[in-house]
């Protein structure tokens, strides 16, 4: 019998071979290519990149293939790869105001410089299953695109508000490099840059639920979508030996600027305040949820009463990471028999003492009742 608890090594190896076979599925069905995942599961790839904190569509697609489509497992693979990459330095801040736009909408203005650009969106589709997709056919063709507004003619909504002094200015850049959540331990209270980092790589579902909770009264912030913009920005880097910025390439981003109510204080006149969300690729839900939670977490800074979960940075930051959460929840699968034995011994002892204490009176009561 004792043999049954041994033999872990062979069991692990066999389980992994079975996993590999199961991942492939029915070999009569053609194997998925990484390029197919990258092109046709693009929003999933974007989410893996966002929560994996690494912009690499091919790697994210490969991770999804290896993970059998398990999102968090794919994020895990990307993060474990990312952690081994050398750091050359930090890029210049990306200029989302100069974004090559693919989509740009504002809920605060009916029309605005640069206009509303719907772009590729599920919004306003009817969610009817399209059975025609089950049959492979001709590639769909988009309508002839109107020329998109160039960046100079589509200023950020928050800049428009800012020019009129209606919204708080963004904190000026004082030159201090932001702390890096992945290179330094998180220390509370965390500043906004750190909080935004944690939210950006945080689990979309968790951040979404927290953002939602603020809409339902748990830390209300009266939000409006000032603007969501999706498009391409250039990433630039200043090599020490050159001393000027050189372009490294382009990445796709989704940026959400929430505009929130603020009644003002003794020092500050009433004005709107900001909540900010940023994600890789087209990840609108994540960017919006992040912006809501970012604003909620500013409650202390803005002198608002604190009591809701979304306003509590220790609660939010300590629990938003899907890898930390899944790791610790799933570790309950690991053997715990040493500790269980200790608990078992205590329960048995307490039960024996309980039985000894109650033996006589309990039998008497039973007899009386019957």
């Amino acid at each position: 019998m004792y043999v049954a608890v041994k033999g872990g090594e062979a069991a692990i190896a066999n389980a992994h071979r079975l996993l590999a076979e199961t991942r492939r599925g029915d070999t009569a069905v053609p194997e998925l290519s990484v390029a197919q995942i990258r092109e046709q599961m693009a929003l999933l790839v974007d989410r893996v990149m966002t929560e994996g904190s690494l912009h690499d569509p091919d790697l994210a697609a490969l991770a999804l293939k290896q993970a059998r489509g398990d999102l968090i497992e794919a994020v895990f693979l990307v993060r474990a790869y990312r952690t081994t990459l050398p750091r050359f330095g930090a890029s210049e801040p990306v200029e989302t105001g100069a974004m090559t736009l693919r989509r740009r909408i504002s809920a605060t203005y009916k029309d605005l410089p640069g206009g509303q650009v719907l772009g590729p969106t599920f919004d306003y589709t009817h969610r009817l299953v399209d059975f025609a997709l089950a049959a492979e056919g001709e590639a769909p063709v988009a309508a002839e695109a109107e020329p998109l507004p160039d960046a100079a003619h589509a200023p950020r909504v928050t800049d428009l508000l800012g020019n009129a002094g209606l919204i708080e200015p963004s904190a000026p850049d004082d030159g201090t490099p932001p702390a890096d959540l992945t290179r330094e331990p998180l220390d509370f209270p965390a500043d906004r840059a750190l909080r935004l980092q944690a939210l950006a790589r945080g689990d979309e579902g968790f951040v979404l639920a927290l953002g939602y909770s603020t809409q339902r009264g748990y830390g209300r912030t009266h939000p409006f979508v000032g603007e969501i913009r999706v498009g391409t920005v250039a990433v630039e880097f200043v090599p020490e030996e050159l001393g000027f910025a050189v372009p490294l390439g382009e990445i796709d981003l989704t940026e959400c600027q929430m505009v929130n109510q603020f009644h003002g204080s003794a020092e500050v006149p009433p004005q709107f305040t900001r909540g900010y969300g940023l994600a890789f690729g087209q990840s609108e839900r994540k960017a919006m949820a992040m912006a809501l939670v970012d604003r909620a977490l500013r409650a202390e800074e803005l002198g608002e009463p604190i009591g809701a979960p979304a306003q509590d940075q220790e609660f939010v930051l300590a629990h938003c990471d899907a890898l930390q959460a899944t790791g610790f929840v799933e570790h309950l699968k690991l053997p715990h028999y040493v500790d269980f034995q200790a608990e078992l011994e205590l329960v048995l002892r307490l039960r024996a003492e309980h039985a000894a204490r109650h033996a006589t009176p309990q039998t008497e009561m039973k007899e009386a009742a019957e």
Partner: protein
Amino acid sequence: MSAATPETGYNFAYLDEGTKRMIRRAILKAIAIPGYQVPFASREMPMPYGWGTGGVQVTAAILGKRDVLKVIDQGSDDTTNAVSIRAFFARTADVAVTTRTRDATVIQTRHRIPEAPLHEGQVLVYQVPIPEPLRFLEPRETETRQLHALAEYGLMHVKLYEDIARHGHIATTYAYPVEVAGRYVMDPSPTPKFDNPKMDDCPALQLFGAGREKRIYAVPPHTRVRSLDFEDHPFRVQSFDTPCALCGAEGVYLDEVLLDDAGKRMFVCSDTDHCEERRADGHVGTGGMETAHV
């Protein structure tokens, strides 16, 4: 040391040298302030949080090419997670591995301290899920750090007292809090309290790594480690009525193995290496010989 091992393409023991230096600095600080939880920039590791990422990072930071590594989980070298972590270091660091406690220079453990006494020069690396002994009494890190700074441990004593008032016993059976070097109250990781006395005045260096919570702490060799208790309710460890069924050992921690669904069971050493060595020396338990051949 910085050359990538040809087999894996990763640095020796997986982590890059910069990260190892950062972890070593945290370890040195932890040794200098016994029982104090030192924040460190825990990295993402290729195994999940909660499965030993803290211990693995500490081991990776201290491992040298001539080290001999032993990894146990629940006292056993052969449980799945121990096998996995040992294989990880065998692959990324190519170090010698062993199951014999006395031969190992570095022992990574989850939930147990080996039965065989540790000796000078050995390092015991604990995997820690929740490093904060006060966490379940006060969920906020900002609060608990203050409590430690002020050595304000009244909460913990009240909790232990309430146990006694309610159950007649202190109802903490594992992760039983200890006071280190007369100053910091420390979580010994979820080892059964049976193992607590082994931490006291231990000749080996004890290092604790919590990856998800980003903390490292330490008990230097020959440091006083006292399990919290009261004068009229002194600390006591679990005791077992029967010796190990395989090797007849007494005064060791036993696992209960269910033999059938009719309540048949046997108790065997949790520390498999200790049990095997005793059997090699000719010790036989009451149920050992028949079951070993099944």
